[in-house]
């Protein structure tokens, strides 16, 4: 009798992460750890002005400094047709300035030197003649009739307006508002923040002058997509471009776009015949790379007297910066913002959005936002709380009355999205129970009697991730379908190659667990390769919580392809017909004769050593997954705060987070993702903001001014879960990386507003610094 088989650590196991072994030894390989023979170093000179005509750039003094190899100017780039490049939103963006600078921190020139210290020294020696122009730092200023024209180089562009976009049914929504018993509105600015991964962006460009092979090591969340973009931008043959994302020190959407620095370093390597390294410093990262949010929103909700929601109207102005460079599906101008009706059964909704150029850095779609779902979720969840109070209902009761009910799924929203599954009531009930909602409301009332301000905030968010079905989702025309390639070696160990790119999410473990579940090979016996465009299948990378919904599905599908062949091999070995073979947890048994079995390892060996006539050798395959729909994770977060009315300081007492992300592949990793997202959500609600003065100077340009939560401020989190599997995903998973940044900011703000509502405070825009909270209290009391 064989010994009891070891349990397969597939789906549902908190397998400790395979990638940790190198990280805990300090043996990760991040971009700045890459050293190549003959490598030169690049530093970038950036504009001190937000808007200024560039009269001249003179690099001769810099060029004379010992150790300086070259000074690269816009003029030089223009000679190679590389002064401008396309953005992921179909706009153009300057690589190095030739005509005028359009935001502070924009790339003006670059120095290539033998040493990074010398490269920075040389920047001081470049003489630039600027002629300052009028500055635009908000969409309101951009829309003014006399606003300076930022994109004067664009043919046909006569103002600063970029796009107008609509979703939903205007007529039906207008009718709902005309018949409403009550209309509640909210104006709020979701301010500009920055993903600020702890590792900044950078690259090492290595073009071999003899072969023309271009190997570019790059902090990229999407190496396959970037390879294609490079082929299109630089005119290099795609087969000679290899993009390698090494270990990435956090991304959060900051590392999706193509930045000018990558292009300049690549051009410099091509011109000089040496590898060129460029590593941003923190200020460069904060002032020039993909920011987040900056949405000015107006929301209105139509209600019946009994608290039934009947209509939703949202309009917004988006501050896109100097170039429209959002990394998002091409057909969508404000991403998936039209999920703004959230978790509620709203019969009518209408959304309009207008994008504007300003003299600020480009970006917008980043920072764990699921393509603008952060802004949408914040709008609806803030509006819902204010509406509940205005109509005199408890916010939990009000939500319950209006939730899309469990039996309504699949549910088509008023803006045309088909929600795949949900049980919003169950998630909220669990959150209310965990936080002790009823008791808290009593304590809150008692505290108010004593003059203490306790606040309880809820947010019942609906996420939308996993872009996406090829019909509607592409970037620059490339369909958002992703691949997985799997090879089982003769000894039964395996190699999985995936098109997503981890930045800390634990793909090397999670995706191995999917194969483990399907084929019964232990996760530690499965090597996972990602990030190297020469050694992975095509796909659009990791952002918007898409890896598990897309690549996770492709991994399950390729595993099932191999299982089909393995079953044939098992039948051959067991000398039975294929129909009589069953596979479970890596063992192939004969129906009705469970003692007769072979393992996946036996089968893998046979695939190379003993396969039947007419069968191809080997056990490997590739699958590309075209999702039939997006997935819709959801949950309810409950936050308890106490506000000090004398100082405006507020302290988080409790955070309860109930998430439903469908099937959890590795519960430990899922909880880690939620912890991280809650912390970033707290940071955005409490302290993170990239500010500008009226001259367009970026104030949040370092970690002394751009505040991030440390362990000292960060609350402790209490997690809970419900599981509503996605009906269309092969393993029922939905993606979870961004749920907490989508859901939590509104919960924190709702808690503070809940505490202050009796004083007359109706809204405070994020971040809720103590100064702003104190001022709101003062104004309410005065007013």
């Amino acid at each position: 009798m064989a010994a009891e088989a070891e349990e397969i650590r597939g789906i549902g196991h908190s397998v400790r992460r395979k990638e940790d072994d190198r990280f805990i030894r300090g043996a990760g390989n991040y971009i700045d750890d890459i050293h190549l023979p003959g490598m030169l170093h690049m530093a970038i000179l950036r504009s001190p002005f937000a808007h200024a005509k560039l009269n001249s750039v003179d690099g001769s003094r810099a060029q004379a400094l010992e150790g300086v190899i070259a000074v690269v100017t816009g003029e030089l780039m223009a000679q190679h047709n590389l002064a401008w490049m396309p953005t992921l939103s179909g706009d153009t963006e300057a690589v190095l300035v030739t005509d005028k600078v359009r935001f502070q921190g924009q790339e003006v020139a670059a120095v290539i030197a033998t040493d990074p210290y010398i490269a920075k020294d040389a920047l001081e020696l470049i003489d630039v003649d600027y002629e300052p122009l009028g500055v635009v730092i908000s969409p309101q200023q951009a829309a003014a009739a006399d606003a300076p024209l930022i994109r004067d180089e664009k043919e046909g562009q006569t103002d600063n307006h970029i796009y107008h976009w609509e979703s939903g049914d205007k007529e039906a929504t207008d009718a709902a508002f005309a018949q409403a018993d009550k209309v509640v509105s909210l104006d709020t600015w979701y301010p500009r923040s920055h993903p600020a991964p702890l590792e900044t962006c950078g690259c090492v460009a290595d073009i071999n002058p003899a072969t023309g092979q271009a190997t570019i090591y790059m902090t990229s969340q999407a190496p396959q997509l970037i390879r294609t973009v490079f082929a299109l931008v630089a005119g290099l043959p795609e087969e000679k471009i290899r993009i390698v994302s090494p270990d990435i020190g956090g991304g959060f959407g900051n590392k999706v776009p193509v930045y000018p620095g990558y292009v300049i370093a690549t051009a410099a390597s091509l011109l000089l015949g040496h590898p060129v390294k460029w590593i941003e410093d923190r200020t460069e990262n904060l002032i020039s790379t993909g920011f987040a949010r900056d949405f000015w929103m107006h929301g209105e909700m139509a209600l019946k007297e009994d608290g039934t929601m009947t209509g939703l109207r949202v309009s917004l102005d988006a501050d896109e910066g100097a170039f429209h460079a959002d990394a998002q599906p091409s057909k969508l101008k404000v991403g998936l913002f039209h999920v703004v009706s959230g978790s509620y059964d709203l019969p009518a909704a209408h959304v309009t959005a207008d994008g504007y150029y300003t003299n600020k850095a480009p970006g917008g779609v980043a920072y764990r936002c699921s393509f603008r779902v952060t802004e949408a979720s914040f709008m609806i969840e803030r509006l819902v709380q204010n509406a509940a109070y205005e109509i005199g209902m408890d916010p939990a009761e009000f939500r319950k009355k209006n939730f899309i009910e469990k039996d309504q799924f699949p549910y088509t929203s008023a803006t045309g999205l088909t929600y795949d599954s949900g049980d919003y009531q169950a998630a909220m009930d669990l959150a209310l129970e965990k936080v002790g909602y009823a008791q808290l409301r009593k304590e809150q009332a008692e505290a108010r009697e004593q003059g203490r301000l306790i606040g309880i905030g809820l947010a019942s968010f609906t996420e939308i991730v996993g872009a996406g079905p090829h019909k509607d989702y592409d970037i620059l025309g490339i369909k958002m379908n992703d691949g997985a390639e799997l090879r089982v070696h003769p000894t039964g160990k395996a190699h999985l190659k995936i098109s997503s790119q981890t930045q800390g999410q634990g793909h090397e473990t999670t995706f191995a667990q999917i194969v483990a579940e399907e084929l019964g090979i232990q996760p530690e016996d499965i090597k996972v390769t990602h990030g190297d465009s020469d050694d992975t299948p095509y796909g659009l990378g990791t952002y918007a919580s898409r890896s598990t919904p897309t690549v996770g599905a492709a991994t399950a599908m390729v595993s099932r392809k191999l299982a089909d062949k393995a079953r044939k091999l098992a039948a051959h070995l067991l000398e039975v017909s294929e129909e009589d073979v069953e596979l479970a947890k890596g063992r192939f048994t004969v129906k009705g004769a469970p003692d007769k079995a072979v393992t996946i390892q036996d089968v893998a060996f046979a695939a190379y050593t003993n396969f039947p006539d007419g069968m191809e050798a080997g056990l490997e395959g590739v699958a590309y997954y075209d999702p039939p729909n997006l997935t819709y994770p959801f949950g309810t977060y409950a936050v308890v705060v106490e506000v000090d009315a004398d100082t405006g300081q507020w302290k988080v007492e409790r955070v309860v987070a109930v998430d439903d992300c469908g099937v959890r592949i590795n519960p430990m990793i899922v909880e880690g993702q939620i912890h991280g997202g809650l912390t970033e959500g707290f940071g955005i609600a409490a302290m993170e903001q990239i500010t500008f003065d009226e001259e367009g100077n970026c104030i949040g340009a370092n970690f002394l001014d751009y505040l991030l939560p440390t362990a000292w401020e960060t609350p402790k989190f209490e997690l809970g879960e419900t599981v509503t599997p996605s009906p269309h995903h092969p393993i029922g998973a939905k993606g979870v990386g961004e749920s907490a940044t989508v859901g939590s900011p509104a919960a924190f703000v709702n808690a503070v507003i809940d505490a202050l509502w009796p004083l007359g405070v109706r809204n405070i825009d994020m971040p809720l610094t103590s100064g702003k909270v104190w001022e709101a209290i003062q104004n309410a009391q005065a007013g």
Partner: protein
Amino acid sequence: MEITVKVNGADRTADVEPRMLLAHLIREEFALTGTHIGCDTTSCGACTVLLDGRPVKSCTVFGVQADGREVTTVEGLLQGGQLHPIQAAFKEEHGLQCGFCTPGMMLTGSALLEENPNPTDDEVRWAISGQICRCTGYMNIVKAIQAAGKAMSETSEDAAASVAS
């Protein structure tokens, strides 16, 4: 300037410019890339190393200031090829995600445990409050440092018991 620094127990010499930061000395001259750089303002602590046993942010110390002193980096945590308890605990408790802050967090944690083998949640949070992690939300980092403290106490009790017997 020629300087000699004891790095992870071994003397290393280098001829460096006075302005070279300790972080660059460690990474570029000594080729120990486990020490990371995340900001330029002493805010994030990714570059934390131990200088004579105490955590310092190596982006705010000149290399020449380490002349004649002892530096411990993440590469020096291994003990006879075995993981330091804090390394094992960070993996076990899922105290890391992207891994970029991890070396600094582990070094500060190990220094804390030398002085206080059984720190409270608040004591750990205060000790690491000069360092930023963007991924984990700190809860599992705190758990990992506490778990390492516990493991180290148990090991030293075992050692004491075996000496006593």
